[in-house]
């Protein structure tokens, strides 16, 4: 069956160019980048060239400000735990938001058990953090502020530049999880006033199992794993050379795409078509996330009176891949913490479905959804006790 893949916030298809860049390092150029011989130095060069490209992607001054990790989760863990531990002398209060990814939230929760205090800021109905709330939450012992750049479930873009400016003024370390922003719009550590920025390659046409963390010069971060002296002693382990090369290629593909934003415009255009089509064809739907200030590829809606899973499975029968809540917590019974934080009730949160497009998404994919979703909704609503009650009421 033809697959209509609309779950690109979960993961993306690798760009052919990325795979092509990686191939030599998975075949002939297999050396360990720590080897002293030329063959190893070639691998070292590949890693350091990748670091330079990645630094550019972040608009960082110095490639040494980049470390490579095993993914967004590890980048977030190093950033938050690493900065919290290294700067504990300053204080043990952390500010984050209720809508962060679990890779941020659960590190914060673990730190709470270890004597840290964490403020989880609320969001407005669009799922956006208010910089004023950040300002109000700051205490003398606040050591770290971590607010994501764009949310994975709703796509809502956060005012990180303002928040970063507040943090900078107060000399508080500012981390932003830019996993969902990377590749969609330029990431600029200077404009964001960010000290720590996480990305994950597989979210923007790069390989799985590799990520990066920007660590501003002078910002102290402890390693969370111990071993060899790799990655500026911040992240031990034999370098994943193909992965790192792939991440850098994904960065350079993205930088090119920002220069000629046609592909981005197409994604947004298709996303808007999908949105319009759903609202036209299905009654009682609400948009989750900011109507405008949202990543170009994300559409999250709640279809009232039914639950997401049934829709997903029904769509799967037609080859459509979408998600409900974030992929990494599926199997969990709780509705999305992000939607609940936005004020949705349990039922409506349970009825959410997320479509996330990519540069490979076609009109055909959109048409497939607009064909499959309305009957799926009808089927599920017809067996929902709430739907009937509502209509007959």
């Amino acid at each position, binding site marked *: 069956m033809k697959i209509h893949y609309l779950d690109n916030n979960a993961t993306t298809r690798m760009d052919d160019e990325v795979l092509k860049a990686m191939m030599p390092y998975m075949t002939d150029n297999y050396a360990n980048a720590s080897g002293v011989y030329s063959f190893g130095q070639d691998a070292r060069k590949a890693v350091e060239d990748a670091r330079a490209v990645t630094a550019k992607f972040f608009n960082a001054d110095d490639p040494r400000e980049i470390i490579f990790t095993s993914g967004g989760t590890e980048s977030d863990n190093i950033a938050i735990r690493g900065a919290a531990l290294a700067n504990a002398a300053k204080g043990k209060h952390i500010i984050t938001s209720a809508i962060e990814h679990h890779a941020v939230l659960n590190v914060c929760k673990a730190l709470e058990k270890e004597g840290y205090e964490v403020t989880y800021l609320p969001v407005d109905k669009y799922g956006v953090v208010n910089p004023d709330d950040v300002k109000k939450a700051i205490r003398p012992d606040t050591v770290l502020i971590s607010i994501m750049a764009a949310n994975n479930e709703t796509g809502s873009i956060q005012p990180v530049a303002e928040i970063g400016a507040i943090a900078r003024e107060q000399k508080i370390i500012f981390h932003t999880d830019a996993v969902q922003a990377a590749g969609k719009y330029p990431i600029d550590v200077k404009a964001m006033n960010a000290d720590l920025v996480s990305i994950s390659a597989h979210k923007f046409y790069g390989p799985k199992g590799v990520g990066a963390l920007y660590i501003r010069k002078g910002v102290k971060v402890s390693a969370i794993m111990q071993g060899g002296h790799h990655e500026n002693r911040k992240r031990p382990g034999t370098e994943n050379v193909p992965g790192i090369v792939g991440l850098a290629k994904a960065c350079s593909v993205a930088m090119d795409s920002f220069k000629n934003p046609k592909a981005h415009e197409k994604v947004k255009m298709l996303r808007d078509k999908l949105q319009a089509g759903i609202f036209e064809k299905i009654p009682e739907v609400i948009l989750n996330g900011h109507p405008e200030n949202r990543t170009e590829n994300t559409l999250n809606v709640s279809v009232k*009176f*039914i639950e997401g*899973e*049934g829709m997903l499975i029904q769509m799967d029968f037609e080859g459509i891949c979408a998600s409900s809540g974030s992929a990494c917590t599926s*199997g969990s019974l709780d509705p999305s913490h992000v939607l609940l934080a936005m004020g949705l009730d349990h039922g*409506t949160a*349970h009825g959410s479905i997320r479509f996330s497009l990519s540069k490979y998404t076609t009109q055909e994919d959109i048409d497939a959804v607009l064909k499959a979703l309305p009957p799926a909704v009808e089927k599920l609503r017809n*067996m929902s*006790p709430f739907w*009937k009650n509502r209509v007959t009421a």
Partner: protein
Amino acid sequence: MKYSEKVMERFKNLKNMGRIENADGIGKVGNAKCGDVMWIYIKVDNGIITDCKFETFGCVAAIATSSQATDLIKGMTVEKALEVTNKSIVEMLDGLPPEKLHCSVLAEDGIKRAIEDYNRKKQGLPPLPEKEDDGHDHGHEGEEE
């Protein structure tokens, strides 16, 4: 987490969805763990369940088990239907992922409650309210809409 082929097959070809107007018994149950809700309707004639339908606001496991269960008890005596367990329904569907086992409890409870409701009606008592597990920690906001 993966559903069995049987669950998928069942979900694809659902039976007994909807309500029975003038049902002889209605079992309204809710799952405290996830906030989901199932309503089971039965028609009873001469101690035999002649028709049975369901309305479910819940996950695929809840929907598939309610369809399976309603199918199962059609034609059964009320007494026999009371013996149906969630375990047997799950087995008929080739199992459920562990984290979805609790969903199948809804179907068993729904049937039991529908029969209880039927028995009460026979005795002229008022219909049963919706039932929820004890562990319940949040309301069914869905209902308020």
